[in-house]
């Protein structure tokens, strides 16, 4: 039976080249993430209701991740937390990408603008990242908004650096010089000649930023900033589980963290494969 499946698989994949395989891998992984987000949006309220008869149950077939001290199913809570994390990560990394698009193009205009951008990058990198997020989220009054803004406003540095280096290289090209001789303004050149070249970088940069944003969001909520204890965020689930560690309820911490780890690995994989596809030098590896 198994050999038959393997053979069928081999037959199925025979006509597919590496590029198509990569695309298939990326779409499967993306589908998984979309499934998590969609199913977390449709969580039945009843599934999270408290049920003291079935509290602190170890993982079983009925409750694959066990239940917590209020009898809530940990699998459902984890799913909800992952969905929330992915949405916050998406929001934060899109905002960060927009900031780096703007700053990257700004740096292409002139020397003064360029040094302002690089100075801003240095300034943001000079404070430890986690502390920076805490600082910004306090500045915006804490809560979920504070955390989202904090994560969004602190992840643009690495992508901006990449974009700046790319811009510098593109600017030495002849067509840029010719365009300048034709009297086009610097902003026009940035918009029409440089921006299209940077588009793949931005797509890739957003996806690479994703896992960082999610990890930081989870860390900050774990420390107790931001989301209220009623939200099923992974950080909150894990910080709650700390109280029950000495009681031996290991599943409260183990499964939610492991699921977060898997989601982050999936994002890394998507980013890496997409990077391979977009980079012509690596496309045949």
């Amino acid at each position, binding site marked *: 039976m198994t050999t038959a499946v393997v053979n069928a698989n081999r037959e199925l994949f025979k006509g597919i080249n590496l590029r198509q395989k990569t695309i298939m891998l990326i779409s499967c992984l993306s589908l998984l993430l979309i499934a998590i987000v969609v199913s977390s949006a449709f969580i039945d309220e009843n599934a999270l209701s408290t049920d003291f008869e079935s509290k602190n149950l170890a993982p079983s077939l009925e409750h694959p991740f066990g239940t917590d001290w209020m009898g809530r199913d940990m699998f459902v809570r984890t799913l909800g937390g992952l969905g929330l994390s992915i949405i916050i990560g998406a929001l934060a990394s899109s905002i960060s990408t927009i900031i780096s698009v703007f700053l990257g193009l700004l740096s292409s205009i002139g020397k003064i603008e360029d040094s302002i951008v690089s100075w801003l990058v240095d300034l943001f990198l*000079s404070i430890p990242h986690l502390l920076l997020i805490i600082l910004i989220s306090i500045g*915006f009054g804490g809560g979920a908004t504070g955390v989202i803004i904090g994560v969004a406003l602190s992840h643009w540095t690495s992508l901006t650096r990449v974009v700046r280096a790319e811009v510098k290289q593109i600017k030495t090209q002849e067509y840029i010089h010719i365009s300048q001789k034709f009297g086009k303004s610097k902003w026009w050149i940035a918009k029409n000649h440089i921006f299209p070249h940077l588009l793949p970088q931005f797509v890739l940069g957003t996806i690479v930023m994703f896992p960082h944003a999610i990890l930081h969001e*989870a860390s900050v909520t*774990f420390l107790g900033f931001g989301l209220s204890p009623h939200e099923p965020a992974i950080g909150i689930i894990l910080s709650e589980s700390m109280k029950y560690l000495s009681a031996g309820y290991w599943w409260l911490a183990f499964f939610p*963290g492991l699921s977060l780890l898997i989601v982050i690995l999936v994002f*890394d994989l998507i980013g890496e494969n997409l990077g391979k596809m977009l980079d012509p030098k690596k496309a045949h590896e």
Partner: protein
Amino acid sequence: MKYEKLGIFMGKKTLKLIVLLIFVCVASFWIVEQSPIDPVRAYIGEMSIQPEQKAKMEEYWGVNTPAHEKFLNWAGSALEGDFGTSLIYRMPVTDIIKERFASSLLLMASSWVLSGILGFVLGIVAGMKHGTFIDKVIKTYCYILLAAPTFWLALIFLLIFSVNLGWFPVGLSVPIGVASGDVTFFDRIHHLILPTITLSLLGVASIAMFTREKLIEVMSSDYVLFAKARGETGFDLVKRHGIRNVALPAITLQFLGFSELFGGAVLVEQVFSYPGLGQAAVAAGLRSDVPLLLAIVIVSTLFVYSGNLIADIIYEFVDPRIKQQETRP
């Protein structure tokens, strides 16, 4: 000649640091000033209070003075070494920072060294056995480590080694219920081991991946090919030509990781309730202790900057290849 150049270099860097610190201070002061959090409320906590008393306290603390005046007052006394009084610990901020930073530094330094050595060794092994099973195992291990949330790893370690096996204490840097004079050196070490291992795991992955890539690059160079032709093989070859070339960039990278180290320490200290600077930062943030938070931001900025500075010095003055390039006309 060389010392003159170093002097100019350090002068420039010091100037840059001063400008940076001014900007960091202004920016972080502005950020917390924007915050809608009420400092009087943060000080008194949940206590109920008469409006007149509150007004008095607001006047005493100068809540309603303009922001730039507040900043100048704060910066003025900060320059004299007075960072105000912490709202939650009710102690001078400088005292807290001194005490906390010492224990944080112990934790960070030990895990920094551990992660550096472990990461370097793993990277060398993976690079030497490039493409084999061992290489793949180390690579996968590093990928997973990079994706793992630090605080989750800390929780799992706590669960396995403290709760289930009982090898290490659950938290704090000294045993509970023992007078501070009676705490032995061994007690401190015992409480330090688990946090150190957890924190060092984070740094292992990046340094190992870097060392691996670098070593593979070096091993495919012409001079290694020539060395092979002379009959050098095995570990001797790697030791003579590989490690010498890889060590310096790896050490530089390790110094550049101070920012991540600090962030990791915040999380690890929180899980192990280790009384360091990171835990103080979280407490200050959660309970809006602005003077303490600002001081921690400044200290951590200095910490990160010193790491970058050392990396720069290694790059500019220690690396023999760069020295050689400069002496050429």
